[in-house]
């Protein structure tokens, strides 16, 4: 019964991803693009959790946890790269 509503929520979240994607394409400087990417990552994690709830497959949520940690590490590495200097 609640699956339909969750699908509508997912559709709206997809619009959010598209909006953040516009910022990734447009962003005048490199940090702007990273901000867009960070937002896309968060929305993707939430969408994975919602998918797991809709299909009742818990492994999707495990993937979301791992995705959250890996996207955090990738953000840190991109930030370190933009900063320049030694690793």
């Amino acid at each position: 019964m609640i699956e339909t509503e969750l699908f509508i929520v997912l559709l709206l979240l997809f619009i959010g991803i598209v909006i953040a994607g516009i910022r990734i394409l447009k962003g005048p400087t490199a940090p702007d693009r990273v901000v867009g990417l960070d937002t896309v990552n968060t929305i993707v994690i939430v969408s994975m959790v919602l998918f797991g709830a809709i299909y009742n497959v818990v492994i999707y949520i495990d993937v979301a946890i791992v995705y959250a940690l890996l996207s955090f590490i990738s953000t840190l590495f991109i930030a370190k790269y933009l900063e320049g200097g030694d690793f």
Partner: protein
Amino acid sequence: MIGTIINYIVYLFLVIGVFFTLLGGVGILRFPDVYTRLHAGTKCTTFGSIFLILSIVILGLKTWHLGDTDGSVLAIHSIIALIAILLTNPTGAHAIARAAHRSGVMPIDAVVDRLKEKNDKNQDRKKTEVDTLEDE
């Protein structure tokens, strides 16, 4: 009866979550520079995902209460995903802001910038030190 109330709470949480997540996206488009965009991108998506994931947790607890242990798995894993988001999101924003400032992207229309003043002062001091060394 209680089931309907729980359903309405879940709907309310879903609406709040979606509204703030989309607001984060719109904020990223509308604000003028990196730092203000980070405000929108970090705060709104974190708040939105708290509510979206909490609604899933409530759903999971409800299924658990009805006698299905799958619900407990759903709820606990969602809470761990929420903790991961809460820990990593502000730290990532801080890393991006610091990288942006060090790579030379300054805030637009800033009324005051103490960090830039401090860095300029350090640079001047280094320059004078180098000058005095060269003089000797």
